[in-house]
């Protein structure tokens, strides 16, 4: 069975064709610079088997990008998808883990669009475009919030009036669940531990978003992101944790205009806002290493960014108790050794001892960069959200024999 997985970003569309249950990736790629024209042309960077290529084509929205990806795949009949699976960032209270798409599900997706204004609307648009163009093709949506549905009440409830939680759905949802679940599963396999007994702190440090997840017995028990993807760590352009009074102060400053404050907190803060140089922490660290550390903003940005991760790692080590491992994943977590070092050094109290040489020159992931004697392992694991989504979709289909009828209802 071919499962075509879409991972829809605000200006990109990643896709993979994965044969299940063998988990062989048969094709994949990314439509880049989707939307209004930019300095560089829109294109699809793809691979089919071992062949790589780039297809330049104008893509004004996600629906056009979807059409172009389908046209590319149509040239190879063996890649014809049997089912399409979509990553959806926020499922709100209406969705648990995944859902087979029908009219009711689409209405519910529209209802949760505002919960992740940068991510949910384009992904829902893609689901609709796919359903209109290929009405017979079953679709499944897998929610990033799903893995965090096991976060206990005491960790997901904010200390606000109860009616806000019950009537408005204001609570912690958590994000990057697909990635955290995937790397935790791979890490447990790597260490030869059953997932049901595996305790860890997973650090998904992306070039855009970032979050930590506390995992007990294989289940998420906390995530640094909250009601929205704004809370928690400092990210490329997002602020992370803020004093609520500070958000109010910004609202007053912008005469109550939410859109302006949203823009400031989502797009003009974080590494970019603090440094004024780059949204990528690896640029900042490289700059400091090259002796540009005399620029106080770069130095301060690196300190604040790393300090926040370190504090949350300590907090979640306390929440987890006897952790088996700390896992680093995604662009920064996998590739930027100084981040792992700064976060894990001098943390012997928690049972963490990082090996400087292994950390500096790790072999291909999954790899352990802790010292031999470290009671808690420090693992670098490559995330693969698309494969995780394909696994979820396959698992759903295996259980729902009559999915096609159900999907077309």
């Amino acid at each position, binding site marked *: 069975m071919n499962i075509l997985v879409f991972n829809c970003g605000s200006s990109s569309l990643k896709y993979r064709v994965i044969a299940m249950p063998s988990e062989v990736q048969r094709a994949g790629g990314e439509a880049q610079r989707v939307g209004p024209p930019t300095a560089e042309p829109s294109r699809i960077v793809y691979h089919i088997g071992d062949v790589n290529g780039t297809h330049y084509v104008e893509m004004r929205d996600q629906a056009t990008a979807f059409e172009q990806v389908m046209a590319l795949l149509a040239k190879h009949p063996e890649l014809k998808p049997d089912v399409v699976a979509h990553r959806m960032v926020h499922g709100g209270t209406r969705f648990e883990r995944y859902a087979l798409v029908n009219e009711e599900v689409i209405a519910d997706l529209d209802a949760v669009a505002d919960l992740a204004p940068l991510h949910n609307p384009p992904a829902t648009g893609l689901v609709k475009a796919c359903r209109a163009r290929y009405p017979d093709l079953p679709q499944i949506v897998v929610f990033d919030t799903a893995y965090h549905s096991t976060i206990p*009440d*005491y*960790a997901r409830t904010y*200390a*606000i*009036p*109860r009616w806000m939680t019950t009537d*408005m759905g204001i609570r*912690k949802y958590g994000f990057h669940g697909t990635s955290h679940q995937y790397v935790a599963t791979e890490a447990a396999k790597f260490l030869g531990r059953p997932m049901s007994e595996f305790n860890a702190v997973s650090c998904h440090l992306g070039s855009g978003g970032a979050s930590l997840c506390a995992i007990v017995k294989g289940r998420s028990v906390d995530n640094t992101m909250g*009601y*929205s993807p*704004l809370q928690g760590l400092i*990210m490329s352009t*997002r*602020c*992370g*944790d*803020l*004093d*609520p*009074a*500070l*958000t*109010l*102060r910004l*609202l007053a400053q912008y005469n109550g205009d*939410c859109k302006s*404050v949203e823009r*400031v*907190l989502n797009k*003009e*803060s974080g*590494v970019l*806002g*603090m440094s*004024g140089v780059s949204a990528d922490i690896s640029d900042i660290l490289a700059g400091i290493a090259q002796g540009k550390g005399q620029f106080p903003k770069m130095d*301060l940005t690196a*300190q*604040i*960014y*790393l*300090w926040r991760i*370190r*504090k*949350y*790692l*300590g*907090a979640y*080590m*306390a*929440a987890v*108790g*006897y*952790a088996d491992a700390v896992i680093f994943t995604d662009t920064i977590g996998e590739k930027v050794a100084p981040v792992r070092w700064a976060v894990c050094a*001098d*943390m012997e*109290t*928690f*049972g963490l001892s990082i090996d400087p040489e292994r950390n500096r020159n790790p072999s291909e992931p999954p790899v352990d960069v802790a010292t031999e004697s470290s*009671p808690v392992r420090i693992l670098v694991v490559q995330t693969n959200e698309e494969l995780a989504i394909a696994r979820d979709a396959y698992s759903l289909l295996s259980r729902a024999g009559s999915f096609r009828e159900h999907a077309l209802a």
Partner: protein
Amino acid sequence: MSILVIRPSRYTSHFAYFAGGCREPILTGDMKPLHSGDGDETETVEELLHIRSLCRKRLSAAEPDALAVRLTFTASEFPKPVVATPEVIRRLQALVPRAPLHLPPKLRLIEHCRQAFPEVPIVLVSETSFFSGLPARERYYGLHADITKSLKLERYGFHGIFHEWACHYARHSIRQNPAARILSVCLIPQPEITAVMRSRPVMVTGGVTPLEGIPGETTCGELDAGIVLTLRKEMGWGPEQINNVLTRESGLRGIVGRDVTVDAIFRTDDPDVRLAREIIQYRILLACGAGIAAMGGVDNIVFSGDYVDVGEILGPWLSSTLVFKGNPDRRIPWLCFRESLDRLIADSAELTIRSHLAALQSETEWDRSHVASGYSVPANV
């Protein structure tokens, strides 16, 4: 040294009078709250004159040796308590734009104190002084550098008096270790946790305001910024209205649906408050974990504050919960510091006056432990 402590607030101002050598006050009471605007405050001066006459009756017509006025916010301006000289008042006035509702009534009160006690030195003891050396990595938020600078958005911490004295007590009580890494848990209606290394705080749960951090009896604590924006969009509320809900209708009151104290949730089996207790306990655990990471370890946990007795419940729990692979048998020692805020303010003022006098007389600086020598060491250490 006899010290009259005044703790002004928007709701009820409080005073306590300590005679020299006494740990307990010989006179306490409440005053009318301060005006936030420019109202007639002759009543305040009259109240202070009345307090003065009460003090004189208690101590053979003598004036207090000093007045100690507690301030809840002075940013990072004064690392230590200060005598209210004209220069200090000028510096306080310069801080007014950063706390326009908070500081003007306090400045007026200081002036009224001067009128009512013209011969008595006034010492200002601020809750934010202890945090003036907070490292930049902890002090700043992940906001655009221009916004941080123009709005002067920095983290402070708001219960420095309890923390400073509790940490001092912990350092001296346990093996006289001045380099000890201490987690200080201040148990008050709005609990606050700080991590202190070599007498310097390196992490604190309080923020730009006391709203951030551990939820309080009516305050929300940490909150996703997206929630504030959702309340604005969906409820149509303005910043003032949202602030009111987050500071007065949230926290334990919001979760439980009625007024309940931090102390009470730890002393009842009432299922209605179970979730509230679990939330507070979990947030305290997370903050302790963050503090340990900030210090690279921990030597002691010390509890202080109005609800210090809750430390007898939290201490054993934290000690047995903050256990990690590789150190499974290690239990973090904990202790409770039971002095009242009034007494600590008086002690701070006494030290300040003595060192002020010593400096004037070119004498050596007074040692804080001289004042602290009256504290007893608890049995559990």
